[in-house]
Protein backbone atom coordinates (compact mmCIF):
# COMPACT_ATOMS: atom_id res chain seq x y z
CA UNK A 1 0.00 0.00 0.00
CA UNK A 2 1.18 3.58 0.51
CA UNK A 3 3.60 5.20 2.89
CA UNK A 4 2.75 8.51 4.59
CA UNK A 5 -0.28 10.57 3.59
CA UNK A 6 -1.89 9.25 0.43
CA UNK A 7 -2.69 11.60 -2.44
CA UNK A 8 -6.26 10.32 -2.49
CA UNK A 9 -7.96 8.65 0.48
CA UNK A 10 -11.46 7.25 0.15
CA UNK A 11 -13.37 5.91 3.12
CA UNK A 12 -16.78 4.23 3.40
CA UNK A 13 -18.06 5.70 0.12
CA UNK A 14 -21.72 5.08 -0.69
CA UNK A 15 -23.54 6.10 -3.84
CA UNK A 16 -26.95 5.00 -5.10
CA UNK A 17 -29.06 5.84 -8.13
CA UNK A 18 -32.65 5.26 -7.05
CA UNK A 19 -32.80 1.76 -5.64
CA UNK A 20 -29.55 0.75 -7.34
CA UNK A 21 -26.73 0.82 -4.76
CA UNK A 22 -23.58 1.27 -6.82
CA UNK A 23 -20.92 1.96 -4.18
CA UNK A 24 -21.35 0.29 -0.79
CA UNK A 25 -18.73 1.49 1.64
CA UNK A 26 -15.75 1.63 -0.70
CA UNK A 27 -12.28 2.21 0.81
CA UNK A 28 -9.16 3.00 -1.22
CA UNK A 29 -5.82 4.81 -0.78
CA UNK A 30 -3.74 6.02 -3.71
CA UNK A 31 -0.20 7.10 -2.90
CA UNK A 32 1.65 10.06 -4.38
CA UNK A 33 3.16 9.09 -7.75
CA UNK A 34 1.42 5.74 -7.75
CA UNK A 35 -0.40 4.28 -10.75
CA UNK A 36 -3.47 2.37 -9.57
CA UNK A 37 -5.78 0.50 -11.90
CA UNK A 38 -9.28 -0.43 -10.81
CA UNK A 39 -10.65 -3.47 -12.58
CA UNK A 40 -14.20 -4.71 -12.52
CA UNK A 41 -17.02 -5.73 -14.80
CA UNK A 42 -19.26 -3.40 -16.77
CA UNK A 43 -21.71 -1.66 -14.47
CA UNK A 44 -19.66 -2.35 -11.34
CA UNK A 45 -19.40 1.37 -10.53
CA UNK A 46 -15.85 2.17 -11.68
CA UNK A 47 -16.89 5.30 -13.57
CA UNK A 48 -19.12 6.38 -10.69
CA UNK A 49 -16.10 6.21 -8.38
CA UNK A 50 -14.12 8.54 -10.67
CA UNK A 51 -17.09 10.90 -10.92
CA UNK A 52 -17.39 10.99 -7.12
CA UNK A 53 -13.72 11.96 -6.75
CA UNK A 54 -14.06 14.67 -9.42
CA UNK A 55 -17.27 16.01 -7.86
CA UNK A 56 -19.41 15.22 -10.91
CA UNK A 57 -21.70 13.19 -8.66
CA UNK A 58 -22.09 13.58 -4.91
CA UNK A 59 -21.91 10.48 -2.72
CA UNK A 60 -24.57 10.00 -0.03
CA UNK A 61 -22.07 8.97 2.58
CA UNK A 62 -18.34 8.64 3.10
CA UNK A 63 -15.19 10.67 2.79
CA UNK A 64 -12.86 11.58 -0.08
CA UNK A 65 -9.64 13.35 0.86
CA UNK A 66 -7.14 14.85 -1.56
CA UNK A 67 -3.80 15.66 0.12
CA UNK A 68 -5.55 15.16 3.46
CA UNK A 69 -8.31 17.69 2.70
CA UNK A 70 -11.94 16.64 2.62
CA UNK A 71 -13.46 17.40 -0.80
CA UNK A 72 -16.94 15.86 -0.86
CA UNK A 73 -18.92 18.99 0.02
CA UNK A 74 -16.53 21.79 -0.94
CA UNK A 75 -17.81 24.93 -2.70
CA UNK A 76 -17.90 25.32 -6.49
CA UNK A 77 -15.02 27.80 -6.30
CA UNK A 78 -12.85 25.44 -4.24
CA UNK A 79 -13.76 22.58 -6.58
CA UNK A 80 -12.56 24.61 -9.57
CA UNK A 81 -9.25 25.32 -7.82
CA UNK A 82 -8.90 21.64 -6.85
CA UNK A 83 -9.60 20.44 -10.38
CA UNK A 84 -6.77 22.55 -11.75
CA UNK A 85 -4.44 19.82 -10.48
CA UNK A 86 -6.42 17.07 -12.25
CA UNK A 87 -6.43 15.77 -15.80
CA UNK A 88 -8.74 13.19 -17.28
CA UNK A 89 -8.79 11.01 -20.37
CA UNK A 90 -12.39 10.06 -21.13
CA UNK A 91 -13.42 6.74 -22.61
CA UNK A 92 -14.86 8.40 -25.72
CA UNK A 93 -12.27 11.19 -25.74
CA UNK A 94 -15.03 13.75 -24.98
CA UNK A 95 -13.34 16.24 -27.30
CA UNK A 96 -15.21 19.49 -27.88
CA UNK A 97 -16.77 19.18 -31.35
CA UNK A 98 -16.93 22.91 -31.95
CA UNK A 99 -13.19 23.46 -31.39
CA UNK A 100 -10.16 22.49 -33.45
CA UNK A 101 -7.81 19.81 -32.12
CA UNK A 102 -5.23 22.31 -30.82
CA UNK A 103 -7.98 24.37 -29.14
CA UNK A 104 -9.15 21.21 -27.37
CA UNK A 105 -5.64 20.52 -26.09
CA UNK A 106 -5.11 24.15 -25.08
CA UNK A 107 -8.58 24.53 -23.53
CA UNK A 108 -7.54 24.12 -19.89
CA UNK A 109 -4.54 26.39 -20.35
CA UNK A 110 -6.61 29.19 -21.89
CA UNK A 111 -9.84 28.97 -19.91
CA UNK A 112 -8.73 27.80 -16.47
CA UNK A 113 -5.12 29.03 -16.33
CA UNK A 114 -5.55 32.25 -18.33
CA UNK A 115 -2.71 31.58 -20.75
CA UNK A 116 -2.73 33.75 -23.94
CA UNK A 117 -4.01 31.82 -26.98
CA UNK A 118 -0.77 32.13 -28.96
CA UNK A 119 1.34 30.75 -26.11
CA UNK A 120 -1.24 28.03 -25.37
CA UNK A 121 -1.17 26.96 -29.02
CA UNK A 122 2.59 26.45 -28.75
CA UNK A 123 2.14 24.25 -25.68
CA UNK A 124 -0.70 22.36 -27.42
CA UNK A 125 1.52 21.59 -30.42
CA UNK A 126 4.24 20.30 -28.05
CA UNK A 127 1.71 18.09 -26.28
CA UNK A 128 0.38 16.75 -29.57
CA UNK A 129 3.95 15.98 -30.66
CA UNK A 130 4.54 14.13 -27.37
CA UNK A 131 1.64 11.78 -28.22
CA UNK A 132 2.85 11.31 -31.78
CA UNK A 133 0.61 13.76 -33.63
CA UNK A 134 1.99 16.43 -35.95
CA UNK A 135 0.99 20.04 -36.50
CA UNK A 136 -1.35 19.18 -39.41
CA UNK A 137 -3.63 17.33 -37.00
CA UNK A 138 -3.80 20.42 -34.79
CA UNK A 139 -5.95 22.28 -37.31
CA UNK A 140 -8.44 19.43 -37.84
CA UNK A 141 -11.86 19.12 -36.22
CA UNK A 142 -12.34 16.20 -33.77
CA UNK A 143 -14.91 14.66 -36.15
CA UNK A 144 -12.10 14.12 -38.69
CA UNK A 145 -10.06 11.91 -36.32
CA UNK A 146 -9.96 8.13 -35.95
CA UNK A 147 -10.66 6.47 -32.57
CA UNK A 148 -6.96 6.08 -31.79
CA UNK A 149 -6.21 9.68 -32.71
CA UNK A 150 -9.08 10.91 -30.54
CA UNK A 151 -7.57 9.02 -27.58
CA UNK A 152 -4.18 10.58 -28.25
CA UNK A 153 -5.68 14.05 -28.44
CA UNK A 154 -7.61 13.31 -25.24
CA UNK A 155 -4.35 12.25 -23.60
CA UNK A 156 -2.61 15.41 -24.83
CA UNK A 157 -5.45 17.48 -23.36
CA UNK A 158 -5.25 15.58 -20.05
CA UNK A 159 -1.52 16.29 -19.63
CA UNK A 160 -1.42 19.80 -21.15
CA UNK A 161 -1.97 21.61 -17.86
CA UNK A 162 0.76 19.58 -16.09
CA UNK A 163 -1.67 18.04 -13.60
CA UNK A 164 -0.63 16.25 -10.43
CA UNK A 165 -3.32 13.59 -10.78
CA UNK A 166 -4.57 12.00 -14.01
CA UNK A 167 -7.61 9.75 -14.39
CA UNK A 168 -7.89 7.36 -17.30
CA UNK A 169 -11.38 6.06 -18.03
CA UNK A 170 -11.07 2.82 -20.01
CA UNK A 171 -8.19 4.15 -22.13
CA UNK A 172 -8.02 1.20 -24.54
CA UNK A 173 -11.73 0.42 -24.98
CA UNK A 174 -12.73 0.38 -28.63
CA UNK A 175 -9.15 0.32 -29.94
CA UNK A 176 -7.38 -2.46 -31.80
CA UNK A 177 -4.68 -4.29 -29.75
CA UNK A 178 -1.79 -2.44 -31.39
CA UNK A 179 -3.31 1.00 -30.85
CA UNK A 180 -4.27 -0.05 -27.32
CA UNK A 181 -0.67 -0.94 -26.63
CA UNK A 182 0.53 2.38 -28.09
CA UNK A 183 -1.90 4.33 -25.90
CA UNK A 184 -0.78 2.35 -22.83
CA UNK A 185 2.86 3.12 -23.61
CA UNK A 186 2.04 6.81 -23.96
CA UNK A 187 0.20 6.72 -20.64
CA UNK A 188 3.11 5.03 -18.85
CA UNK A 189 5.57 7.44 -20.45
CA UNK A 190 3.49 10.52 -19.50
CA UNK A 191 2.90 9.32 -15.94
CA UNK A 192 6.56 8.49 -15.29
CA UNK A 193 7.89 11.60 -16.99
CA UNK A 194 5.53 13.96 -15.19
CA UNK A 195 5.67 11.98 -11.92
CA UNK A 196 1.92 12.18 -11.48
CA UNK A 197 -0.51 10.07 -9.50
CA UNK A 198 -2.63 8.01 -11.88
CA UNK A 199 -5.96 6.29 -11.38
CA UNK A 200 -7.23 4.20 -14.27
CA UNK A 201 -10.32 2.09 -14.69
CA UNK A 202 -10.47 -0.70 -17.20
CA UNK A 203 -11.66 -4.22 -17.84
CA UNK A 204 -8.81 -4.82 -20.29
CA UNK A 205 -6.37 -6.99 -18.29
CA UNK A 206 -3.53 -6.62 -20.80
CA UNK A 207 -3.81 -2.84 -20.46
CA UNK A 208 -4.05 -3.07 -16.65
CA UNK A 209 -0.84 -5.10 -16.48
CA UNK A 210 0.98 -2.56 -18.64
CA UNK A 211 0.02 0.63 -16.83
CA UNK A 212 -0.49 -0.36 -13.19
CA UNK A 213 1.78 -0.32 -10.17
CA UNK A 214 -1.14 -1.62 -8.15
CA UNK A 215 -4.46 -3.20 -9.08
CA UNK A 216 -7.69 -3.05 -7.10
CA UNK A 217 -10.79 -5.03 -7.98
CA UNK A 218 -14.20 -3.44 -7.57
CA UNK A 219 -17.13 -5.79 -7.14
CA UNK A 220 -20.54 -5.24 -5.64
CA UNK A 221 -19.67 -1.65 -4.69
CA UNK A 222 -16.55 -2.51 -2.69
CA UNK A 223 -12.86 -3.11 -3.29
CA UNK A 224 -12.62 -6.85 -2.79
CA UNK A 225 -8.94 -7.28 -3.65
CA UNK A 226 -5.97 -4.92 -3.75
CA UNK A 227 -2.37 -5.78 -4.61
CA UNK A 228 0.57 -5.31 -6.94
CA UNK A 229 0.46 -6.37 -10.58
CA UNK A 230 2.83 -9.23 -9.82
CA UNK A 231 0.48 -10.57 -7.14
CA UNK A 232 -2.66 -10.63 -9.25
CA UNK A 233 -2.02 -14.06 -10.82
CA UNK A 234 -1.68 -15.56 -7.34
CA UNK A 235 -4.45 -13.57 -5.70
CA UNK A 236 -6.23 -16.60 -4.26
CA UNK A 237 -9.52 -14.83 -4.73
CA UNK A 238 -12.19 -16.56 -6.85
CA UNK A 239 -13.64 -13.23 -8.08
CA UNK A 240 -10.23 -11.99 -9.25
CA UNK A 241 -9.42 -15.35 -10.76
CA UNK A 242 -12.68 -15.41 -12.73
CA UNK A 243 -12.23 -11.83 -13.91
CA UNK A 244 -8.61 -11.93 -15.04
CA UNK A 245 -9.14 -15.20 -16.89
CA UNK A 246 -12.49 -14.12 -18.33
CA UNK A 247 -14.33 -17.22 -17.14
CA UNK A 248 -18.07 -17.35 -17.75
CA UNK A 249 -18.60 -19.53 -14.65
CA UNK A 250 -17.76 -18.24 -11.19
CA UNK A 251 -18.95 -16.12 -8.29
CA UNK A 252 -19.25 -12.85 -10.28
CA UNK A 253 -22.80 -12.03 -11.30
CA UNK A 254 -22.63 -9.48 -14.09
CA UNK A 255 -24.72 -6.36 -13.62
CA UNK A 256 -27.22 -5.98 -16.42
CA UNK A 257 -28.30 -2.39 -15.81
CA UNK A 258 -26.01 0.59 -16.06
CA UNK A 259 -25.53 2.34 -12.70
Amino acid at each position, binding site marked *: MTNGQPKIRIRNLHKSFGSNQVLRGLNLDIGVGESVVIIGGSGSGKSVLLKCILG*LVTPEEGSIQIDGKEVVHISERDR*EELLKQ*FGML*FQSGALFD*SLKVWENVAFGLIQAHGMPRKQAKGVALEMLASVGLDARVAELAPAELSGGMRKRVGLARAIATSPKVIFFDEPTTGLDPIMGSIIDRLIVHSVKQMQVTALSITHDMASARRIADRVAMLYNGEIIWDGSVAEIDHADNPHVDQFIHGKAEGPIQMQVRKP
Partner: protein
Amino acid sequence: MAALDALALLGRTFLKFLEATGRLAVFVWNAFSRAWRPPFYFRAVGQQMIDIGYYSLPIVGLTAIFAGMVLALQSNIGLARFEAETQIPEIVAFSITRELGPVLAGLMVAGRIGASMAAEIGTMRVTEQIDALVTLATDPFRYLVFPRLLAGLITLPLLVLVADVIGIFGGFVVSVQTFEFNPANFINKVWDYLVWDDIFDGLVKSSVFGFIVTLMGCYQGYYSRGGAEGVGRATTNAVVSASILILVADYFLSALMFGV
Protein backbone atom coordinates in the same frame (compact mmCIF):
# COMPACT_ATOMS: atom_id res chain seq x y z
CA MET B 1 -61.64 4.44 -6.63
CA ALA B 2 -61.70 6.26 -9.96
CA ALA B 3 -61.97 9.59 -8.16
CA LEU B 4 -59.01 8.70 -5.93
CA ASP B 5 -56.95 7.68 -8.97
CA ALA B 6 -57.77 10.95 -10.69
CA LEU B 7 -56.83 12.85 -7.53
CA ALA B 8 -53.54 10.93 -7.28
CA LEU B 9 -52.79 11.72 -10.92
CA LEU B 10 -53.53 15.38 -10.31
CA GLY B 11 -51.28 15.38 -7.25
CA ARG B 12 -48.44 13.67 -9.11
CA THR B 13 -48.73 16.11 -12.00
CA PHE B 14 -48.72 19.08 -9.63
CA LEU B 15 -45.66 17.73 -7.77
CA LYS B 16 -43.86 17.20 -11.08
CA PHE B 17 -44.71 20.76 -12.08
CA LEU B 18 -43.33 22.08 -8.78
CA GLU B 19 -40.18 19.97 -9.18
CA ALA B 20 -39.62 21.22 -12.73
CA THR B 21 -40.21 24.83 -11.69
CA GLY B 22 -37.79 24.49 -8.79
CA ARG B 23 -35.14 22.90 -10.97
CA LEU B 24 -35.53 25.64 -13.57
CA ALA B 25 -35.22 28.32 -10.87
CA VAL B 26 -32.03 26.70 -9.52
CA PHE B 27 -30.70 26.51 -13.09
CA VAL B 28 -31.25 30.25 -13.62
CA TRP B 29 -29.79 31.02 -10.21
CA ASN B 30 -26.66 28.97 -10.98
CA ALA B 31 -26.22 30.73 -14.32
CA PHE B 32 -26.50 34.27 -12.93
CA SER B 33 -24.91 33.84 -9.50
CA ARG B 34 -21.74 32.29 -10.92
CA ALA B 35 -21.40 34.72 -13.82
CA TRP B 36 -19.94 37.53 -11.74
CA ARG B 37 -16.59 35.93 -11.02
CA PRO B 38 -13.81 35.73 -13.59
CA PRO B 39 -12.99 34.42 -16.09
CA PHE B 40 -15.56 36.20 -18.27
CA TYR B 41 -16.28 34.62 -21.61
CA PHE B 42 -16.80 37.73 -23.79
CA ARG B 43 -15.79 35.80 -26.90
CA ALA B 44 -18.55 33.24 -26.24
CA VAL B 45 -21.13 36.04 -25.75
CA GLY B 46 -20.05 37.66 -29.05
CA GLN B 47 -20.26 34.35 -30.89
CA GLN B 48 -23.76 33.69 -29.55
CA MET B 49 -24.89 37.22 -30.47
CA ILE B 50 -23.79 36.57 -34.05
CA ASP B 51 -25.56 33.19 -34.09
CA ILE B 52 -28.79 34.54 -32.63
CA GLY B 53 -28.84 37.91 -34.37
CA TYR B 54 -26.94 37.93 -37.63
CA TYR B 55 -27.75 34.40 -38.76
CA SER B 56 -31.44 34.75 -37.83
CA LEU B 57 -31.82 37.95 -39.88
CA PRO B 58 -32.93 36.29 -43.15
CA ILE B 59 -35.65 34.13 -41.57
CA VAL B 60 -36.90 36.88 -39.26
CA GLY B 61 -36.75 39.48 -42.05
CA LEU B 62 -38.73 37.23 -44.38
CA THR B 63 -41.34 36.56 -41.70
CA ALA B 64 -41.60 40.26 -40.85
CA ILE B 65 -42.03 41.49 -44.43
CA PHE B 66 -44.84 39.03 -45.17
CA ALA B 67 -46.47 39.75 -41.81
CA GLY B 68 -46.47 43.48 -42.67
CA MET B 69 -47.82 42.80 -46.16
CA VAL B 70 -50.65 40.56 -45.02
CA LEU B 71 -51.49 42.98 -42.25
CA ALA B 72 -51.94 45.78 -44.79
CA LEU B 73 -54.13 43.53 -46.93
CA GLN B 74 -56.33 42.39 -44.06
CA SER B 75 -56.54 45.87 -42.53
CA ASN B 76 -57.76 47.25 -45.82
CA ILE B 77 -60.58 44.70 -45.92
CA GLY B 78 -61.59 45.36 -42.32
CA LEU B 79 -61.18 49.13 -42.38
CA ALA B 80 -63.09 49.46 -45.68
CA ARG B 81 -66.24 48.48 -43.77
CA PHE B 82 -65.88 51.71 -41.76
CA GLU B 83 -64.46 53.72 -44.66
CA ALA B 84 -61.28 54.06 -42.62
CA GLU B 85 -58.73 52.67 -45.11
CA THR B 86 -56.49 55.68 -44.51
CA GLN B 87 -55.68 54.21 -41.09
CA ILE B 88 -53.68 51.31 -42.58
CA PRO B 89 -50.24 52.84 -41.75
CA GLU B 90 -51.19 53.27 -38.10
CA ILE B 91 -52.57 49.73 -37.83
CA VAL B 92 -49.50 48.24 -39.49
CA ALA B 93 -47.01 50.23 -37.40
CA PHE B 94 -48.81 49.62 -34.11
CA SER B 95 -49.32 45.88 -34.69
CA ILE B 96 -45.81 45.25 -35.94
CA THR B 97 -43.94 47.14 -33.22
CA ARG B 98 -46.04 46.06 -30.28
CA GLU B 99 -47.05 42.54 -31.21
CA LEU B 100 -46.12 40.86 -34.45
CA GLY B 101 -42.45 41.89 -34.56
CA PRO B 102 -41.53 40.56 -31.10
CA VAL B 103 -43.76 37.48 -31.18
CA LEU B 104 -42.92 36.31 -34.70
CA ALA B 105 -39.19 36.95 -34.17
CA GLY B 106 -39.39 35.12 -30.82
CA LEU B 107 -41.12 32.11 -32.37
CA MET B 108 -38.74 32.00 -35.34
CA VAL B 109 -35.72 32.23 -33.07
CA ALA B 110 -37.23 29.55 -30.80
CA GLY B 111 -37.35 27.22 -33.79
CA ARG B 112 -33.89 28.07 -35.03
CA ILE B 113 -31.79 28.91 -31.98
CA GLY B 114 -33.67 27.11 -29.17
CA ALA B 115 -33.49 23.86 -31.11
CA SER B 116 -29.82 24.23 -32.02
CA MET B 117 -28.83 25.15 -28.45
CA ALA B 118 -30.68 22.17 -27.00
CA ALA B 119 -29.13 19.86 -29.59
CA GLU B 120 -25.62 21.24 -29.07
CA ILE B 121 -25.66 21.23 -25.27
CA GLY B 122 -27.59 17.94 -25.20
CA THR B 123 -24.97 16.29 -27.39
CA MET B 124 -22.26 17.71 -25.15
CA ARG B 125 -24.06 16.19 -22.16
CA VAL B 126 -24.49 12.68 -23.58
CA THR B 127 -20.94 12.55 -25.00
CA GLU B 128 -19.39 13.61 -21.65
CA GLN B 129 -18.16 16.93 -23.05
CA ILE B 130 -19.82 18.79 -20.16
CA ASP B 131 -18.05 16.47 -17.69
CA ALA B 132 -14.84 17.21 -19.59
CA LEU B 133 -15.43 20.95 -19.09
CA VAL B 134 -15.70 20.40 -15.33
CA THR B 135 -12.50 18.34 -15.21
CA LEU B 136 -10.77 21.20 -17.05
CA ALA B 137 -11.76 23.48 -14.15
CA THR B 138 -14.34 25.30 -16.29
CA ASP B 139 -17.82 25.91 -14.95
CA PRO B 140 -20.39 24.86 -17.62
CA PHE B 141 -22.87 27.44 -16.31
CA ARG B 142 -20.39 30.25 -16.86
CA TYR B 143 -18.93 28.92 -20.09
CA LEU B 144 -22.01 27.49 -21.83
CA VAL B 145 -25.19 28.78 -20.23
CA PHE B 146 -24.66 32.40 -19.14
CA PRO B 147 -23.19 33.64 -22.47
CA ARG B 148 -26.21 32.21 -24.28
CA LEU B 149 -28.73 33.74 -21.85
CA LEU B 150 -27.01 37.12 -22.01
CA ALA B 151 -26.81 37.01 -25.80
CA GLY B 152 -30.53 36.15 -25.97
CA LEU B 153 -31.45 39.07 -23.70
CA ILE B 154 -29.41 41.57 -25.71
CA THR B 155 -29.75 40.33 -29.28
CA LEU B 156 -33.45 39.64 -29.75
CA PRO B 157 -34.40 43.32 -29.21
CA LEU B 158 -31.84 44.31 -31.86
CA LEU B 159 -33.27 41.70 -34.20
CA VAL B 160 -36.81 42.92 -33.50
CA LEU B 161 -35.79 46.51 -34.21
CA VAL B 162 -34.77 45.39 -37.70
CA ALA B 163 -37.92 43.24 -38.00
CA ASP B 164 -40.05 46.31 -37.11
CA VAL B 165 -38.55 48.31 -39.96
CA ILE B 166 -38.89 45.43 -42.44
CA GLY B 167 -42.45 44.65 -41.32
CA ILE B 168 -43.61 48.26 -41.72
CA PHE B 169 -41.86 48.31 -45.10
CA GLY B 170 -43.93 45.24 -46.08
CA GLY B 171 -47.11 47.15 -45.20
CA PHE B 172 -45.77 50.16 -47.10
CA VAL B 173 -45.17 48.13 -50.27
CA VAL B 174 -48.69 46.67 -50.30
CA SER B 175 -50.32 49.98 -49.42
CA VAL B 176 -48.46 51.89 -52.13
CA GLN B 177 -48.57 49.22 -54.84
CA THR B 178 -52.03 47.74 -54.28
CA PHE B 179 -54.02 50.46 -52.57
CA GLU B 180 -52.30 53.42 -54.26
CA PHE B 181 -51.25 55.12 -51.05
CA ASN B 182 -49.04 58.16 -51.37
CA PRO B 183 -45.58 56.95 -50.19
CA ALA B 184 -44.71 60.16 -48.34
CA ASN B 185 -48.13 60.18 -46.75
CA PHE B 186 -47.69 56.60 -45.51
CA ILE B 187 -44.31 57.38 -43.95
CA ASN B 188 -45.56 60.60 -42.36
CA LYS B 189 -48.54 58.84 -40.83
CA VAL B 190 -46.36 56.10 -39.36
CA TRP B 191 -43.89 58.68 -38.04
CA ASP B 192 -46.58 60.89 -36.50
CA TYR B 193 -48.57 58.04 -35.00
CA LEU B 194 -45.88 55.88 -33.43
CA VAL B 195 -44.76 56.85 -29.94
CA TRP B 196 -41.58 55.73 -28.19
CA ASP B 197 -43.57 53.47 -25.86
CA ASP B 198 -44.82 51.37 -28.80
CA ILE B 199 -41.27 50.55 -29.83
CA PHE B 200 -39.87 50.32 -26.30
CA ASP B 201 -42.60 47.95 -25.08
CA GLY B 202 -41.96 45.70 -28.06
CA LEU B 203 -38.24 45.67 -27.33
CA VAL B 204 -38.81 44.82 -23.65
CA LYS B 205 -41.04 41.96 -24.71
CA SER B 206 -38.48 40.69 -27.18
CA SER B 207 -35.77 40.78 -24.55
CA VAL B 208 -37.92 38.55 -22.34
CA PHE B 209 -38.62 36.27 -25.32
CA GLY B 210 -34.89 36.06 -26.06
CA PHE B 211 -34.29 35.00 -22.48
CA ILE B 212 -37.07 32.38 -22.66
CA VAL B 213 -35.75 30.88 -25.91
CA THR B 214 -32.14 30.60 -24.74
CA LEU B 215 -33.15 29.42 -21.27
CA MET B 216 -35.29 26.60 -22.66
CA GLY B 217 -32.58 25.62 -25.15
CA CYS B 218 -29.88 25.51 -22.46
CA TYR B 219 -32.06 23.90 -19.78
CA GLN B 220 -33.47 21.13 -21.94
CA GLY B 221 -30.04 20.41 -23.43
CA TYR B 222 -28.24 20.46 -20.08
CA TYR B 223 -30.52 17.87 -18.53
CA SER B 224 -30.91 15.66 -21.60
CA ARG B 225 -30.05 12.01 -21.18
CA GLY B 226 -30.42 8.74 -23.02
CA GLY B 227 -28.25 9.23 -26.10
CA ALA B 228 -29.48 10.43 -29.48
CA GLU B 229 -33.13 9.86 -28.58
CA GLY B 230 -32.73 11.98 -25.45
CA VAL B 231 -31.14 14.79 -27.44
CA GLY B 232 -34.00 14.65 -29.94
CA ARG B 233 -36.51 14.84 -27.09
CA ALA B 234 -34.65 17.77 -25.53
CA THR B 235 -34.69 19.63 -28.85
CA THR B 236 -38.45 19.14 -29.29
CA ASN B 237 -39.11 20.15 -25.67
CA ALA B 238 -36.98 23.28 -26.05
CA VAL B 239 -38.95 24.51 -29.07
CA VAL B 240 -42.39 23.58 -27.75
CA SER B 241 -41.84 24.95 -24.23
CA ALA B 242 -40.24 28.17 -25.52
CA SER B 243 -43.09 28.75 -28.00
CA ILE B 244 -45.77 28.23 -25.36
CA LEU B 245 -43.94 30.37 -22.78
CA ILE B 246 -43.50 33.16 -25.35
CA LEU B 247 -47.25 33.31 -25.98
CA VAL B 248 -48.07 33.15 -22.25
CA ALA B 249 -45.48 35.81 -21.42
CA ASP B 250 -46.77 37.93 -24.32
CA TYR B 251 -50.22 38.13 -22.79
CA PHE B 252 -49.03 38.99 -19.29
CA LEU B 253 -46.45 41.51 -20.51
CA SER B 254 -49.05 43.17 -22.75
CA ALA B 255 -51.50 43.36 -19.85
CA LEU B 256 -48.78 44.83 -17.65
CA MET B 257 -47.71 47.38 -20.24
CA PHE B 258 -51.27 48.51 -20.95
CA GLY B 259 -51.92 48.62 -17.21
CA VAL B 260 -54.86 46.19 -17.47
